[in-house]
């Protein structure tokens, strides 16, 4: 066995004098099991699990608070507020329709453009918001072109998870990793983004072979698309300018965060507050209250409270030393070899993320990887493990319909519109394509970070 560190468990007043390791471990496993069944909302389960970790005495409230990652919570909340306000301007729909018209409304061209737009939006916004903006446009366009929407929706799902892997803010696993290590926005851009176009291109090549080469639409149908007036989607030019100004400032802030000595959460929350100020400054106090309330209501509080509960749970099992044991087990399996460990993390996180929520997995893996630092000669040598975790968790979401929230959102919207996406047919196509992306990621990780 390769010892990671010598763990000294803090003194705990666990209920009935039970063994803290058993109490924390049982709570952790039970909570994750209930989350996986998806029978109770994940925010409720995680919060209950987290609170029981405190009430059972594994952690006190102060220790639980230390487990909370403000950077993740603040970055998520700030970006959600910014996106909620920006999307009211109609700019995202403008870009989607404009791009469809730019390719002369040819079906394959539209599929390419919408996939590209989805990937880029997903790198900058959260994936769920991105697909919620792109899917209605897709359904309308495919209805007019009289082509089946499945290939379009399928590719958009894949593109959103692929694009989300490119940046610090693209996907929650990256936000969590970026906050824990800490890696900057630029670290993600330099280390992850270069492989994303390759994966996207390969994915689109497969889509072309399966569907693209047979896609066809009549001139009349294409003319219908060309008659769409994308300018009408811009409902508020002033809001558009304000939103784009703040969004650009926030992204520039992320890029120069290191020089500015600022954390991403501070930048995102400042951006949210600034945009709220700009959009409310000349309004009455009643109107301001309504607008601010509406903007805050669009924050995905389920995700935020899910994180709140999860961080406490993970901190609980970390405090009792369970995650160190897990790290030891992983290192035993890989023989303490960095290459083996990185590739194992990449593949396990991909398979795991295809089948269950990747957020709890990443939340657990972060302290596990951190505790491997002494074995690999310090935290500075762990980069390949972090990039493996990020790529595996983000790209793994493409493996099945339940692999990522965005996948389920697309399926739900499509079903409502009379175009259901079934679990098995989706997985039969998506899982091999996800494996292909992980093979590409394996080659990239190996040659970029391990040779």
């Amino acid at each position, binding site marked *: 066995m390769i010892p990671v560190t010598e763990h000294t468990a803090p003194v705990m007043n666990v209920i009935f004098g039970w063994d803290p390791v058993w109490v924390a471990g049982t709570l952790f496993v039970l909570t994750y099991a209930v989350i996986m069944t998806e029978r109770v909302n994940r925010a409720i389960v995680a919060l209950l699990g987290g609170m029981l970790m405190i009430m059972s005495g594994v952690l006190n409230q102060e220790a639980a608070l230390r487990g909370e990652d403000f950077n993740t919570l603040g970055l998520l909340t700030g970006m959600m507020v910014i996106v909620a306000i920006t999307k009211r301007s*109609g700019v995202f*729909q403008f870009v989607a*329709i404009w791009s469809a018209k730019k390719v002369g409304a040819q079906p394959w061209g539209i599929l390419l453009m919408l996939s590209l737009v989805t990937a880029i939006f997903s790198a900058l916004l959260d994936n769920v918001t991105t697909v919620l903006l792109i*899917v*209605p*446009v897709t*359904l*309308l366009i495919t*209805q*007019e072109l*009289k082509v089946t929407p499945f290939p379009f929706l399928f590719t958009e799902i894949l593109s959103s998870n692929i694009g989300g892997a490119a940046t610090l803010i693209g996907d929650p696993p990256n936000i969590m990793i970026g906050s824990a290590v800490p890696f900057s926005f630029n670290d993600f851009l330099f280390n992850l983004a270069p492989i994303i176009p390759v994966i996207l291109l390969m994915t689109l090549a497969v889509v072309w072979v399966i569907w693209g080469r047979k896609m066809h639409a009549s001139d009349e*149908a294409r*003319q*219908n*698309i*060309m*008659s*769409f*007036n*994308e300018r*009408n*989607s811009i*409902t508020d030019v002033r809001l558009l300018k304000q939103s784009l100004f703040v969004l650009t400032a926030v992204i520039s802030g992320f890029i120069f965060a290191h020089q500015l000595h600022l954390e991403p959460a501070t930048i995102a929350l400042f951006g949210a507050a600034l945009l709220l100020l700009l959009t409310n400054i000349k309004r009455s106090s009643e109107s301001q209250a309504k607008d601010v309330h509406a903007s805050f209501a669009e924050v995905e509080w389920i995700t935020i409270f899910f994180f709140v509960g999860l961080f406490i749970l993970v901190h609980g099992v970390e405090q009792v030393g369970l995650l160190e044991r897990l790290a030891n087990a992983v290192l035993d399996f890989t023989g303490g070899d960095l290459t083996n460990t990185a590739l194992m993390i990449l593949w396990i996180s991909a398979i795991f993320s295809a089948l269950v929520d990747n957020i709890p997995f990443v939340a657990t893996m972060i302290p596990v990887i951190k505790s491997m630092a002494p074995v690999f000669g310090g935290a500075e040598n762990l980069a390949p493990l972090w990039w493996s975790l990020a790529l595996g968790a983000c790209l793994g979401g493409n493996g099945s319909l339940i692999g990522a929230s965005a996948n389920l959102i697309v399926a739900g*919207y499509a079903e*409502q*519109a*009379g175009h259901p996406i079934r679990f098995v047919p989706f997985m039969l196509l998506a899982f091999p394509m996800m494996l292909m992306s992980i093979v590409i990621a394996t080659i990239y990780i190996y040659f970029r970070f391990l040779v």
Partner: protein
Amino acid sequence: MKLKKILIPTVFAREGMKVREVFTICVEAGVPALPYLNSKGERRGFISLSGVMQHGCLPNYMVELAMVLGDQLSCVKDAKTKVRELMESPIESYVDKPLHSITSKTPIIKAMAILEKFHSSFLFVFDGEEYRGVITAQGIAQRMLEIDTEKK
């Protein structure tokens, strides 16, 4: 203002009826909706003209992107066929959840408050299990005009 003066008596929409029948009743009576009874005679919700139009003709994505739609749309071509199909379809798939109802003794101002609360343009009037009819925002407006004329 008495609520009875603006009450429009109608029949129920019943399980097994077609959209055509409901549309005919609503248009003839000048009401936007009818309460719905299932085969056991139990009140299970209501059918509204706007609900049928929204669920039967308009996918969500068209509503979301209403502003960008062009004047050329593929669905316009076979619109008449689709309308006939819609009229022939059973009403069950268009039943909305039960709406808050009032009694014939409810003051009109309370009825107006309930209309506002539920962003609705109509309310059903029940005295216990007995159905009295529908009141509409237009009916209230008409009564207001009548009162205004009486004063003069």
